């Protein structure tokens, strides 16, 4: 089973048009990009609560 997400507040994963890139943004402002949605969601899950970019 994949890890439940533990981040708080709305977060967004945007598939950038014209590319295969996923742009993930945490409510704290931290960002990451990737091409595998599971990896991007793992990053959001592991991103520390109340963290900073």
């Amino acid at each position: 089973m994949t890890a439940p997400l533990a981040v708080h507040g709305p977060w967004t994963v945007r598939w950038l048009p014209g590319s295969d890139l996923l742009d993930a943004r945490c409510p704290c402002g931290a960002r990451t990009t990737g091409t595998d949605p599971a990896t991007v969601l793992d990053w959001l899950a592991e991103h520390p609560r109340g963290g900073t970019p």
Partner: protein
Amino acid sequence: MALPPNEFVRDQWYVAAYGREVGSPDGPSVLGRTVCGEPIALYRTEDGTVAALADRCVHRRFPLSASSVVGDTVVCGYHGFTYDRTGACVAVPGQTRIPRTARVAAYPVVEQDSFVWVWIGDPTRADAARIPRAPWLADPAWTTVSGMEPLAARWSLLVDNLLDLSHETYLHGGYIGTPEVAQTPITTTVDDDARVVRVSRHMADAECPPFYARSTGLSGRITRWQDIEYVPPCLYTLHSRVAPAGVLPPEDGPDDEAFHVEVVYAITPSTPGTTYDFWAVARDFALDDDAVSAFLAESNRTVVLQDVVALDLLETVVAAEPEGTQELSINIDTGGLAARRMIAAMLAGQAAPVADRPAPQPVP
């Protein structure tokens, strides 16, 4: 990995029926539905409210859904044990003493937005304010067609299906699928506090599929927006906006040049391998046009039945897989994966395994 088939999220409201199905002159006086593995008998009392009782007489287990409504009570069709809406037995045949344990569980039940919602779990935690809303379905400013199709598939497969609409292109071509659906990037937004997953796909210049061409009269290229809101585990809404290509909502004022359709699905687990797929299509145009209603009802039912065939087939594949079989995910799966994780968190947060939880108690 798909969710396990035998896990239900409890302490939740689920749709057990449409209101029109309960106490209908054309249907059974008591309607039987199994929600999250619990057989439930639904009926209307004399004041029109819906009651929900465990579908099993305490005497010899006869289903109350095969019994009769008399006044505010259900009279068991086998030996006449009679229950009121709280589940208390108020009469037994041939004697005046009613055994103290003669009682069936009653479920919290609310009729709202054309649905009959039942609470599965600890009844002391039932809060009607937490029922997700689908106001279009009972709003006279909208015209709605609806139905329900049973699935021989686990409920998580329907969640996967609805969160990734790229399948429209391949499974529903000729109805709602066009090439642009699968080709257009999505944006996924997850609000853990509000417990909602949103997936948006905005097609700026798309082919108009027959579902919308025939119902709206649009011809040529269209702007087509799909904005999904999924409130796990039960309620899914697709806010669909179609308009001539290039026509966007105004900065302020009504979006009169567009056609709006609210496609609502209530995803109700029945047993570990079966699901009720409640569907509804509400529109804000051609409100009194019966031909449009008939077309949308038939088209959407066909689309749902295409999903039923696919998901029933998929269930046989998943059920036969060795444990640990992997699957592959790509960008289009982001919303579905996010929904799975939110559901996993809900399952992990459940207080105790089902077997250790108290049985439903009668509602005062």
